Each structure stands twice: as C-alpha cells, then as structure tokens.
C-alpha cells in the first residue's frame, strides 16, 4: 500500500506542469540569470585569503590587546595585521583609504568593531570580537592572576574557532555565492507548495479526489507518510539538480565536497516540505495554501539574501534572532558556513536548527492531520 501510493504520487507530481515549472525550471533559470549577472565576479573574486589589515583605537590596556597581538604574530600567515590609531577619525580615514578592512575601538569597557564592506573579512572581524566577549571573563581572570599565560589562553581559544578556518582553507568562497545559497533556500521552500498539493490530494476536506481517497480503506499514517516521503524525495532531487547545475553547469564552486552540499540541501528540501505540510494542516483552501507557501518562500529567502546578498550579515549583526528562526537563513547560513569555514560550530547550529524545525513541524502537523473525519467538506 505504502509503495503503491508512494510511486503514484511521484508519477503524478512529476507530470504536474506547474510544479515542474516552479520547483525545478524556475530555480535553474534564476541560477542562470544570477550567473550572467555576476558569475564573472565570482570566478575571479579578489577576496582570496590574506592577512586582514585592521585598525585599533585604544584608550587603555585591556585583555583584548593580547588577543590582537596573538592573532597577528607567531605564525607564518597571521590572521590580522594591527595598526593603532589615536582616534576614531584617523581609523575611519584609514578604512576609507583602503588601508584597513575595519577597526576595533574601545569605548570605556566596551569594544566595538566597524567594518567596511560586508563579506567574509567583516564576518571574521565580528567573530573575533564576539568570541572575545564570550571568553572575556576567563581572559580577564587569567590576565589578573597570570598575565604571562594569556597568550596560551588565546591560542586555546582560537583552536576551536571557526573564524580561523579560512586560514586553514587558505581561500574564501566569493560573497556572491550567497545569492546561490539563497536561491537554493528559495527552491527548497517552494517545496512547501509541492507539499500542499500532495496533501490536498489525500485530504477529503481539500479536494474531490481527496474525498475519494479518504473513502478508501487506507491508514491515514500510511498515506501521510507515503505522501511526505515522495515529496521529500522529489524536492531532494530537484535541489540536487540545482546544485549540480551550479557546480558543473555554471562552474561555480561550493568550495567543499559536493556530497556535503547535497546533504545540506536534502535536509533543506525536507524542511521546505514539512513547512508545506504544516501550512496544509492549518489552511484548507487550495488558493490560500499556495499563497501562504509562496509568501513564506519569498519573504524568508529575501531575508536570507536572495535580492540583496548582504542582508543576512546585516541581520546577523543587529537582530541575529531572525536568522535563527528564518528557515531560508538557516539553509543559506549552513551553506555559507560550510563553503567558507567547513564543518564548524555555526554550520552545525544551522543544520541542527533545520532538523529540529523539520521534526517539530512534522510532529505538530501529523497530530493535526491525524483526524479522519471533518466538520465540513
């Protein structure tokens, strides 16, 4: 029974011209358009990894000094090259002139960072500061009791740190790849629409064929899971085609082994599908289901940088919580972190977020959809 439903669902959805157009062809087309828009910029993006020149406006001695020192010496390719400036004006000027990529500035106890162009460099500068703030207490204590040990402590701190990974990779993935990450996120979330189509076909309160379907002696769980699995598979394949097209058709590199990318996009596809199942569980009108699916896809992928690549970074530095709950940003962030830093903490954070979101929505939806008779058809 499961196989019967599963196979027929795949067959009928694969022949659905709307879904082929929007879930498969449209993302491929958009990828091509992006490619002609800035494909060349990606291919010879100047932002290879180099030591980052950074300014420092200092009022008083702070443990942060030690961190900067540690990061700018004692290795063959130091991460930072620190220049001190007397005041903010000077630091600003250096940034404007392109002498630095950003500067740290002390304001009393607080240290903040100002960066030029958003990108991997700025992410690194932000993360150094963030990590420092996380470890500040520890560093301060060490600084007071054993000032001589602080360099070691910084070393330990950086060991587990992902912001040092580009150093290991010795290259960055172009910031423009962000558009393609967002595009994959959009395509995955379009899966939600595919899922509502699937769901309406097996629900008596959503379609005529659903009435016929639910009149048959089929366990609701069987039909639900056969349906969900068939759409997860389809969306996974659609995403896979998109990834292959970007990597081998357009020759734009994700920077990591392709199976890692495919693993992420498959999870992303499953997330898109369950979002659709959830929408279907809450809304029963076909038109509304479609409207919701597309609206969710567009808004979330916009916020993840589909139209304006830097928006996700900007949100990250101002209201990071949005990126933690925006599914498109999770997927984009996952691919971004994967491409630039490898399998790091932030990568797993986003990956696990996707898995948790998927499982949660699935459980809630199934609980709602379990009922087999309706108040109104």
């Amino acid at each position, binding site marked *: 029974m499961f196989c019967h439903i599963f196979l027929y669902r795949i067959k009928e959805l694969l022949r659905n011209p709307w879904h082929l157009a929007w879930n498969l062809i449209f993302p491929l087309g958009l990828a091509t358009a992006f490619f002609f828009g800035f494909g060349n910029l990606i291919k010879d993006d100047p932002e290879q990894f180099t030591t980052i020149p950074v300014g420092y406006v200092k009022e008083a001695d702070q443990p942060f000094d030690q961190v900067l020192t540690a990061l700018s010496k004692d290795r063959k390719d130091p991460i930072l090259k620190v220049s001190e400036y007397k005041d903010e004006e000077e630091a600003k000027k250096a940034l404007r002139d392109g002498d630095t990529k950003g500067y740290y500035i002390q304001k009393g106890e607080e240290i903040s960072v100002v960066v030029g162009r958003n990108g991997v460099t700025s992410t690194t500068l932000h993360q150094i500061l963030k990590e420092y703030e996380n470890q500040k207490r520890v560093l301060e204590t060490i600084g007071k009791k054993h000032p001589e040990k602080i360099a070691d402590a910084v070393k330990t701190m950086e060991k587990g740190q992902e912001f040092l990974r580009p150093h290991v990779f010795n290259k960055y993935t172009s910031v423009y790849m962000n558009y393609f990450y967002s595009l994959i996120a959009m395509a995955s979330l379009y899966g939600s629409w595919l899922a509502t189509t699937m769901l309406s076909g097996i629900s008596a309160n959503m379609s005529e*064929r659903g009435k*016929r379907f639910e009149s*048959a*002696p089929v366990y609701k769980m069987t039909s639900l899971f056969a349906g969900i699995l068939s759409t997860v598979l389809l969306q996974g394949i659609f995403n896979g085609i998109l990834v292959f097209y970007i990597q081998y058709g357009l020759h734009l590199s994700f920077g990591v082994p392709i199976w890692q990318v495919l693993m992420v996009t498959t999870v992303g596809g499953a997330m898109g599908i369950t979002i659709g199942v959830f929408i279907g569980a809450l809304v029963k009108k076909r038109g509304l289901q479609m409207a919701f699916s597309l609206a969710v896809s567009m808004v979330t992928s916009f916020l993840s940088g589909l139209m304006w690549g830097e928006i996700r970074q900007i949100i990250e530095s101002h209201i990071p919580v949005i990126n933690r709950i925006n599914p498109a940003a999770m997927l984009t962030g996952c691919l971004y972190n994967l491409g630039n830093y490898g399998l790091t903490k932030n990568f797993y954070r986003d990956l696990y977020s996707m898995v948790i979101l998927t499982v949660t929505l699935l459980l809630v939806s199934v609980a709602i959809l379990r009922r087999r008779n309706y108040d109104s058809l």
Partner: protein
Amino acid sequence: MESEIVKIDQLVKRYREKLAVDHFSMEVRQGEILGLLGPNGSGKTTTINCLLSLLKYDKGNITVFGKAMRPDAYDLKGQIGVVPQNVAVIHTLTVAENIDFFCGLYIRDKKKRKQCVEEAIEMTGLGEYRKYYPKKLSGGLLRRLNIACGIAHRPKLIIFDEPTVAVDPQSRNAILEGIREMNRQGATIIYTSHYMEEVEELCSRIIIMDRGRNVAEGTTAQLKASLKNRETIRMDLVTCTDEIIRDLKEINHVYEVKQEGEQLIIRCDGGTHNLLHIMGYFEEKNIPFGRVTTELPTLNDVFLEITGKELRD
C-alpha cells in the same frame, strides 16, 4: 430474506447554524437500487458523506453491513464504492492509471487488480481512451471515468451521487445501463439524483428527501398510490372565466382547477373517464378549446403534494 446493507437512524448534521440533515433515517436492503431523490440542497450529498464517515455528524447512528460505520472502519470501507458528485480524478494520470491507482487502494494483489481495472474500463466503455489524460475527455467520458474509479474494486455497495449531471443523453443511458448491470452482478446500489425520471426508471425503491428530511419512501407505484392526484388534465383555453372554473370543480373527482396563462390545469383524484366528462362540459356550453393533454401522476406530483413545491427548478 432481504437484509439491511445500510441503516441510517435519526441522522442530524449541522454546518454551523445551517441544518443540512434533519433526523433522517433510511435503510438499504441487499440487492436493491435505492433512489435518493431530492432537489438541490436537500442534503443528499451530506447524507452520503456522513454515511462514508468523511463528515462528523451531530446525532444519529449509521451501520453498514450490520456494523457501526466509523472513520477507521477499514473493513467496511473496503467493500464500498463511491462515485462522488463532482468528478474526482487525478489530472496528471491517464485514464487507466487513475483507475489502477484508486483500485490499488482496495486490492493489493497485482494480477487481480489488473483484471479489475480491465473490467472497469470495459464496463464504462473507456477502452479507446485508456491512455488519455482526463483533460482531453468530454464531460460524459469524464463522468464515466469518475464511475470507473469508484467501482473497479467490485464493491458490494456502490454509492452514486448524481452521476448524470451535465451528461449527454447517450452517455447517460450508458451509465444507467451500467448501473443496472452492476446491480445484476450483485451490487447493492444507492443512487442520488434530482431527476425524477431517472430515479423512476432505474430504482427499485425511492426515498424522497426535502430539507434534510425523509418525506416519503416506497416503490414508484406505492408512492403514486399514496397520492390524492391520479390524473392531471391540461387544456389550452383562450378565454377562461370564473364561471368555467366553478363549473369544472362541480364535476365528480375534480378537486383542483388552476389557470396558468392560457392553460387550464385540472387535477382529478381518481375515477374514470374524467377527460370525457370535462370535454363534454365544454361541448355542451359550446366553448372552444385548443390542445388537451392528460398525464398520470409523476414523482413530481408526489413531491408537490408532500412539500407544496415543485421538484424540478
């Protein structure tokens, strides 16, 4: 002995404020073709959906094959075939795939399923269209596909919800003949319609439904026998006076005389030679008249007498 296939007892279904089915009861007996006749909005489809346990209902009991019908009564659902009122097929599957898909929800064995699908295609005359997509089918063929999807698994009980709406006369006859054939092969049939001619022609027993209630039931003959009306005479008459109407009402067995435009409608409650007596009156008074017809009572008259309104609208 006839045994009950379906028993609906005091079914009540409300959609929010709207009372759609109002203490409706019915029985369906083994081997019969039961007609559920009622105008649009009388609650036929709602009753069917309750019977299938697709709809929750407010009150009442429903048993099928002697067991309580519930949403998870899969053993019962497996023996029922449904032909819903609206065409319910999958538009991206061909005719044969549609039938195979729905049949496969009931029959796991592949060989048996194949045979069933072929039979259903044959019975509905869809042979040359098996590779067509539903979009390419005419209205009548689409209805036939809708039927084929509901009956391929050879159910013991088949429910047809207005299967001939918007169907050309040729397809319609094919459909009705098909239903008779399924009945001959042993299936019990519930057939809903708002076309009385169809129900009269096809069904062995009829339940008349109005505003969610069972207002009358029996065979066609029984229903008609319960009528006061036995004969309706229509007569074209250019000038009609109150006097004529009064005089006509005096004639034995005439109980109602009504003028509708240039037509006079005279209803009689039995007797013989009513037409003769009436025409005699006009000859005697030397009043000219046009065409005259006489009709035996129809189910429409039954409906009219019970509910005070016409069935057809």
